[in-house]
């Protein structure tokens, strides 16, 4: 029974996530940027733009220039999250890929990096007057959701060990459209439930910043307006 419930939940969540995000990306990609608006320091070549984008998404370069505290918490959170996500691949692959094995020990303890990041960001949201002013309930809720996921996940790993082999069997089954039994460990169930919730809210929340960062015209445009004429399709119609 539990297995079926969570299976349905995950199928729905995956559909919502994939279709929702794909639809947003499709929308972002189709809207033209009518004018050249790269922000300084703007690269003159497309290679330069790739490099800039790389520095932004890997090092959070602008955030670093902007605010060291937000950078420290935000960057630690995101990088830890990648490690944790990579580690989680082991529950969906058989045999486990070699590089996932390598990540395993780092991914395990990265959970504390995520907790550190969330605590820092949340603390600032409450304590710093300016950030408190711009926060909506949804901003707190998002941190609560992430915090809940990391906390319950860490519990199943470090405190109340769950039957991870059974979980893996369940997940591998889902990938083959076969629904099996799921251990009824409360931390595990809450963990899985919150993850599904996160996947469902992703396309309608600020988590859209993940695809959005690549579509920001001020950061993804090449500074070559004088050399190459840039014209949006709707603007081209004015010329005829």
């Amino acid at each position, binding site marked *: 029974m539990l297995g079926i419930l969570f299976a349905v939940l995950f199928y729905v969540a995956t559909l919502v996530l994939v279709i929702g995000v794909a639809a*947003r990306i499709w929308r*972002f990609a189709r*809207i*033209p*940027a*009518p*004018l*050249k*608006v790269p*922000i*300084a*320091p*703007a*690269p*003159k070549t497309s290679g*330069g733009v790739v490099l800039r984008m790389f520095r*932004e998404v890997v090092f*959070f370069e*602008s*955030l670093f*220039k*902007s*605010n060291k505290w*937000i950078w420290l918490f*935000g960057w630690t959170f995101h990088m830890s999250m990648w490690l944790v996500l990579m580690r989680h691949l082991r529950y969906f692959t058989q045999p486990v890929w070699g590089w996932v094995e390598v990540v395993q020990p780092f991914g395990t303890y990265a959970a504390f990096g995520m907790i550190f990041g969330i605590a820092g*960001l949340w603390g*600032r*949201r409450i304590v*710093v*007057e*300016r*950030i408190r*002013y*711009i*926060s*909506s*309930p*949804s*901003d707190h*809720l998002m941190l609560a959701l992430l915090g809940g996921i990391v906390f319950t996940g860490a519990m199943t790993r470090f405190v109340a060990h769950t039957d991870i082999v059974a979980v893996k069997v369940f997940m591998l089954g889902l990938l083959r459209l076969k629904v099996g039994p799921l251990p009824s460990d409360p931390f595990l169930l809450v963990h899985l439930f919150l993850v599904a919730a996160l996947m469902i809210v992703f396309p*309608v929340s*600020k988590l*859209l*910043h993940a695809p*959005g*960062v690549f*579509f*920001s*015209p*001020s*950061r993804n445009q090449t*500074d070559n*307006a*004088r050399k*190459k*004429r*840039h014209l*949006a399709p*709707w*603007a081209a119609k004015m010329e005829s």
Partner: protein
Amino acid sequence: MAAQDTDIPQLAHPLEIPRLKCGAMAESAPYAASREHQEGLGFPGELLPDWKERALAKMEELAKRNRAFQVYLDTCVKCGACTDKCHYFIGTGDPKNMPVARQDLLRSVYRRYFTFAGKYFPKLVGARDLTEEVLDEWYSYYHQCSQCRRCSVFCPFGIDTAEISMAAREIMDVVGKGQKYCNEIIGKVHDIGNNLGLQEKALRATLEDLEEDIEEDTGISVRIPVDEKGADILLVTPSADFFAEPHIEGLLGYAKVFHEAGVSWTISSYASEAANFGLFIGSYENMRDVSLRIRKAAKDLGVKRIIFGECGHAWRVAYSYLNTLAGPWDFLDQGYPIPQHILEFTWDEIQKGSLTLDKSRNDHIRLTFHDSCNVARASGMGDEEGGQFEIPRNVIKAVCNHFHDMPRDTIKEATLCCGGGGGLLTDELMDLRVKGASPRMTALKEVTEEHGVTHLAAICAICKTQFSKVMPKFGYDMDSVLSVHQLVSNAIVLSGQDAGEGDGSETPENAPNDAIGEEV
């Protein structure tokens, strides 16, 4: 509000973060455009009964037309990194002047009508209905943004509040709530060709006077031609350069450089304006119409090149948009950048060695340089990344012995706005302008204390006018702001001129700045 009422913020350093003062600037708003000015640009003359539907329809259209608008509305994570980056926030403490809060004034409405979360859980995501109070709030706070883009530099996603405020102003225009200052000026450009409404005859007379001034001063006849068919270069410069101090001094500098370089050039009476306020109101169509005047002038006069004078937002429109709006420029000489900045031209000439420069003529000046927002963050110069920072400084160092930069976090891509850009250079906003200038003025004071800096050079007509108005409130003379080409003009020794003559150091009377300086 009269400027005298302004309590000038005392900042310990240029970027001091203020305590929040909720509602501090809620009363600030520019004069509304009259029916005539609105209709002149094709906007309704007053707030229409169905304004709300029109506003939402426009918002939807913008989200389909402009990727930046859509992506920026969806992408902000409320991290707060931008909250202390706006000079208007630093100067006023009003939390709605924090860039993300300014965006949220519109984002909250976008969410309410166009997103799942906002439609069904408005309280949760801070979504709200569009009401007349909200519209008034937009009018106030979107006219407290100089569209300087400083916030965009520091946002992890490059979210540019300027894009949002341009969009907001466009939405307000199409529902009949336009701003007088911008819309009146754009109307003048459409009708006459420049922001001042200066007719051809008056323009010719002014320029003849200036030619006489140069001859009197130097003994050399230097021409400032108007509408000369067959000239090689069309100079497009802000009309303030014809009338206001210190702008005129810059124009004299361009004329002398052209003279020494031995090129033929002309001003056009039809396109006698570099400024393009269509940018400020976010109107592609208006911006395009103004730009097309330059294309027509270039064709009619048969020029081979176009060079722009010192103006910040004009250079943004020229460098980044002119090719889009009024191109392709296949009838011009492809051997030169199209368009070219006067500083690029002058720097080339300096490197070629065609100018004789006597730096000591600027020895009475200890100088710093103000990077104008639109030049620094929204355009470039030369072929190298960062040329817009280096080329002006290179020229300055070639003509001036005492140069000191302000603190690094207040210059170049992090430059602080003069406080008067983006269509806010109007008297009724003086209180905002003074407060918005305070971070820049504090940075200036630091180099005054440290290096004895006496003057600030700028390459933007708006900056120059704004500074000459607000600097006296911070203890500087109104003529402490200079054009970069004024320094060039001082230093240049014209061929045939004996080196002792005309040291150029005296500045003519500050005459008409008050009368027309607001209309650069």
